[in-house]
């Protein structure tokens, strides 16, 4: 058990922010009680640091020296800056759901144009509806991570998305988080409930508009996937280079589902993407993959916990990290196979490419297997670009940067090619190419 009694200054500042934010947080009665309990749970654990095994490589006490106050609700000017920033990131044909500085922005969202079977409300609207106490459940998960507790305490808004049984969506739904504020934080919490036998595509983007500075995001997404559902999900985190982005996603997956998930981190000074995926129904296939593209002094952490709770599921994880300059990439992957989860087939492969002597990559694969009839495997490598490949390309006329770009593209391509949906794969490839072009 991780007990931390000493509080850091950052920890105290958060307490002040929680007290000061009371008027800004939607929901009374049981909602307020749940928030208070969540904050107490957070305070008990404290800001995660290196002696907590799950946060070993991402010590927030060091990396998050100050906590910004909650961003003000965006004014008309902020909405316009967000609108301008959205354009290059909006996926063609997608139904956009936009959050600006942690507040749902109907003016920028396509709520009216949603496909049949898709239902959207804002978290704020539901929490403020005093008719039902069940709404407080939106702030609860079985995960006890301190940053998820903090999120429950301080979430100002989010998207509550429902997709009805049998819906075959032809267009992606895209949730876009836009930061416009300076020295402010946004706590968002979204719920995605996907029914049985659905086919859907979900994209999430984190971007910064003009004026965003020293911005902090703490996002949580709670997802339920019904039986027989096929979901493609891509998250692109391109927050501002001085931002802090902590995102937690909690998936509970039914039987015979097919999940194809991908995370690309290229933004933020400090980021952590933690995914907790519980395979709770038999015959489900999970493919969860990702790429970190980091430069400068960026710190990017991707932590995945895949829980095989039932028999006969497969999971595949392919992760690639590219770290340039003095960047630090972290991959932690835990696969847990419960005693009754026989015939589990789980594989994880993580590789890191270091482009400079000062770049760092940590890979931590962990297998916790309690069943005896399973096929589980993992692999991890870290290295530099191959000199012999570089010389071959340069002898054919490619400059050093061009040759590196081609090899980096091929390297991250091994993860990107896991994306099943052609459109999403092209989208991620284009984003990776933009990152590479900035190296030229």
């Amino acid at each position, binding site marked *: 058990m991780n007990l931390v009694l000493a509080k850091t200054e950052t920890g105290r500042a958060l307490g002040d922010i929680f007290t000061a934010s009371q008027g800004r947080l939607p929901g009374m009665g049981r909602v307020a009680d749940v928030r208070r309990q969540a904050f107490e749970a957070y305070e008990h654990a404290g800001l995660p640091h290196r002696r907590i095994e799950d946060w070993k490589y991402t010590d927030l006490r060091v990396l998050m020296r100050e906590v910004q106050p909650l961003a003000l609700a965006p004014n008309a000017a902020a909405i316009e800056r967000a609108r301008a920033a959205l354009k290059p990131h909006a996926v063609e044909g997608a139904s956009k759901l936009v959050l600006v500085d942690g507040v749902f922005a109907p003016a920028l969202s396509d709520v009216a144009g949603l496909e049949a079977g898709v239902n959207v409300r804002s978290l704020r609207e539901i929490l403020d509806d005093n008719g039902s106490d069940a709404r407080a459940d939106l702030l609860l998960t079985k995960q006890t991570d301190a940053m998820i507790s903090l999120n429950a305490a301080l979430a100002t808004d989010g998207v509550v998305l429902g997709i009805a049984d049998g819906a075959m969506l032809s267009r992606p739904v895209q949730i876009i988080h836009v930061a416009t504020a300076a020295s402010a934080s946004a706590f968002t919490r979204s719920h995605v409930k996907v029914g049985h036998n659905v086919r859907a595509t979900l994209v999430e983007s984190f971007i910064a508009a003009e004026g965003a500075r020293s911005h902090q995001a703490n996002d949580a997404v709670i997802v339920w996937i019904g039986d027989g559902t096929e979901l493609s999900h891509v998250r692109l985190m391109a927050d501002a280079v001085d931002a802090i982005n902590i995102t937690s996603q909690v998936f509970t997956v039914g039987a015979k589902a097919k999940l194809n998930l991908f995370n690309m981190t290229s933004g933020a000074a400090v980021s952590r993407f933690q995914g907790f995926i519980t395979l709770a129904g038999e015959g489900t296939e999970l493919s969860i993959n990702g790429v970190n593209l980091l430069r400068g002094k960026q710190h990017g952490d991707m932590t995945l916990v895949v829980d095989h709770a039932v028999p006969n599921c497969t999971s595949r994880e392919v992760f690639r990290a590219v770290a340039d300059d003095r960047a630090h990439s972290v991959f932690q992957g835990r696969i847990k196979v419960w005693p009754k989860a026989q015939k589990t087939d789980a594989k994880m492969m993580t590789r890191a490419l270091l482009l400079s002597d000062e770049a760092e990559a940590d890979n931590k694969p962990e297998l916790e297997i309690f069943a005896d009839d399973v096929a589980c495997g993992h692999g991890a490598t870290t290295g530099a670009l*191959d*000199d*012999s*490949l570089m*010389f*071959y*390309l*340069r*002898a*054919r*006329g*490619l*400059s*050093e940067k*061009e*040759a590196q770009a*081609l*090899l980096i*593209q*091929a*390297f991250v*391509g*091994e993860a990107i090619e896991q994306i099943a949906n052609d459109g999403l794969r092209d989208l991620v490839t284009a984003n990776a190419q933009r990152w590479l072009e900035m190296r030229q």
Partner: protein
Amino acid sequence: MEQQMPLLEVKDLQVRVDDREILHGLSLTVNEGEVHAIMGPNGSGKSTLSHVIAGKPGYEVTGGEILFKGENLLQMNPDERAAKGVFLAFQYPVEIPGVATMMFLRTALNAQRKARGESEYSTPAFLKKVREVSNSLNIPQDMLKRGVNVGFSGGEKKRNEVLQMALFEPSLCILDEMDSGLDIDALRIAADGVNALRAPNRAMIVITHYQRLLNYIIPDVVHVMSRGRVVKSGDKDLALELEASGYAQFEDAA
């Protein structure tokens, strides 16, 4: 009439690798249109010479110079040398997973053209050119969709080198042990491809341990290298003489 400038002049070249001198004052002059063969026993410095001309890192030039079209080649990056018209066909072409051959060919060709201030090839013009060249080399189109050299046989890898040579139209081709690992049929296909590229404005340096390759690519000049120097030069008959008597006599001479 003014005498024509040699395409390549290697003058008194001295090269070290890890504090060991490999080339001890090697000189070589190659004119446009000529095919030179460099023969010699293992460890004589043949491959080192090819690597130094192409600009491979890890070699320290401690003396001498290399002029290419009158310019100091040693001051150029490998990619600048390629754009100027130097092409090294590798003894062991590398495999590059994840980089499709077609994309690689196009990126390389356009990088060279851009460096020379020429316009980039349009897609149809590029595809047409690749198709022509690959057909003549008996390279199936689906091979070009695969990663560069990934899963290629030895012969296919060498043919892929010749394909690039034909596409990039260099003025100096260096073939480093092109015959290694090839059976007679594969060798003949590759050699036919090379012969088709012989031209008055193009020179070739064919590096080989065995005379066999020179039955297919007939050289104008044959040099024998031993212990880091050219110890004898002659016409194509020198290669036959070597085949009969071996390298031992030259090792003693050096």
